[in-house]
């Protein structure tokens, strides 16, 4: 019996050092480890580099609280709402350095790191400004002649994150974890990181994982810590468990339109709460129960109310 990797949220967060490079699970408005992100902001380490493909909410919260200095990014927007304002303003004001990629390019860079190869071939990016403007220390893209005589091909360099934080539906004590629904780029993120922290809606027995072992997307051997964070994607959703809190997301998005309101949001929902228990207590159980999905439809009938 291997030793359990289960730790408290506060303990897991305390392992993140100033200046770390980070990547986070999630896509659109679901599956982001936001309990982890809020606790990270409360503990106030900073100067992070984000390797950000689809982590709009983690990136927005971290950039908005001044925790980030650089982003290797492919796309940061709030689908259906608009651009991520805190991030956009920070880039416009020169507070955060960015290097842009396509989704495929950044995914393949993480995967190259995870597969232990210095680069991977890619057929996009060439000819665009993603090729001609490269701002990070490590060059992301170049063209080489195929050693197999098939002409020129683009290649992207490997990019490793220090830590990947992945929110999951179920995990056992070793971090063997299942994500339902679209899994974004989790496979590349976990392989492309020096260490992986799993946060999960539900801690389950090894037997329950074995029953669904074909759905295990995170192999426990890559995982250093497991944290139980129910409703851990709030205000985003988690497939098969709860829907997005549309009301809260809209409230945040309005607040992000000006500096004072944004600071007030952070004060109220992040710094003003001692921990995640206090955050969820303040939301109230009725609110959370109404976000639970209908087991047949897989979405909530009383959305965001």
């Amino acid at each position, binding site marked *: 019996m291997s030793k359990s990797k289960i730790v408290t949220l506060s303990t897991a967060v305390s392992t993140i050092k100033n200046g770390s490079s980070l990547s986070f699970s999630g*896509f*659109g*408005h*679901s*599956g982001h480890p936001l309990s982890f992100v809020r606790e990270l902001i409360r503990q106030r380490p900073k100067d992070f580099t984000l390797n950000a*493909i*689809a982590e709009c909410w983690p990136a927005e919260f971290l950039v908005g609280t001044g925790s980030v200095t650089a982003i290797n*990014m*492919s*796309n*940061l*927007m709030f*689908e*259906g709402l608009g*651009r*991520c304002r805190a*991030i*956009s303003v920070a*880039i*416009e004001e020169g507070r955060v350095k960015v290097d*842009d*990629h*396509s*989704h*495929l*390019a950044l*995914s393949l860079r993480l*995967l190259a790191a995870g597969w232990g190869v210095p680069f991977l071939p*890619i*057929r*996009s*990016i*060439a*000819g*665009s*400004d*993603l090729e*001609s*403007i490269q*701002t990070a220390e490590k060059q992301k893209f170049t*063209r080489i002649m195929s050693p197999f005589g098939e*002409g*020129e*091909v*683009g290649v992207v360099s490997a990019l490793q994150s220090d830590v990947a934080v992945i929110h999951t539906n179920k995990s056992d004590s070793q971090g063997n974890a299942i994500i339902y*629904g*679209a*899994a*974004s*780029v*989790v*496979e*590349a993120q976990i392989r492309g990181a020096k260490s992986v922290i799993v946060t999960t809606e539900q801690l389950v027995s090894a037997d329950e994982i074995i029953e669904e072992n074909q759905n295990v997307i995170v192999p426990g051997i890559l995982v250093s810590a497991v944290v139980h964070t129910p409703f851990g994607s709030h205000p985003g*959703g988690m*497939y098969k468990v709860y*829907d997005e809190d549309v009301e809260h997301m809209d409230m945040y998005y309005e607040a992000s339109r000006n500096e004072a309101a944004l600071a007030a949001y952070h004060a109220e929902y992040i710094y003003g709460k001692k921990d995640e228990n206090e955050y969820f207590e303040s939301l109230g159980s009725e609110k959370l129960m109404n976000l639970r*999905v209908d087991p047949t*439809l*897989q*979405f909530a009938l009383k959305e965001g109310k």
Partner: protein
Amino acid sequence: MDEVMTIATSRYMLDGNTIFIGTGLPMVAAYFAKATHAPNAVLLFESGVLDPQPKYIAKAVGDSRLVSTARRVSGMMDSLLLLQGGHVDLGVLGCAQIDKFGNINTTVIGPGGYAKPTTRLPGSGGANDIASLAKNFLVVTRHKPRTFVDKLDYLTSPGYLTGPGARERAGLLGGGPIAVVTDKCIFEFDDNTCEMVIKSIHPGVTADEIAESTGFKILIGSEVEQTVIPKISELEILRNQIDPEGVYI
């Protein structure tokens, strides 16, 4: 005019096509195509959602409304590598800026360029991959002078780059843009020059109006026509069956 745009967009979606798509008007157009002339079109989303049933209008490509009706759900790399493998017939993109060769900017706006943007936009996402790799792609956008520009502030996703032969020289596998659908007209691209040419003008719009809304000199095709007006029966399907709650249309 949204309805004219939606139905015009749907006409480029052919039966049996695999279509790489996002949310918004293109999704409504694709659902309309599936309900009418292209029942066997298959939709593929960046999130890894493949072939969802058009039961609900989703607000996001990772939305549970899409995931819960899809034939297969994987992740982003799977969708993008299907694209790179040459399995996507048509992509549909939006833009903040577009030039006469159909090159697109969705990254930064302003004279300071990439280093000092006036307005930072979301970036490429999968758009550069779609523009580079889909067999063909469509652009759907509002027609404004600040959108149709002579020179992009940043080239995020490749149209025909600098003109004939440029995509081939860059080694791009996809065929490039086939049309740009706006709220004023439809452009296609000249086979020889790779430049945007007006193919049809929407009812009630004049060529002068289009010229005023376009930052480069417009070219009008020799066989320019009026865009086909949607039939009442088509509008009924769109309004009552596809998007009854008016999420997008």
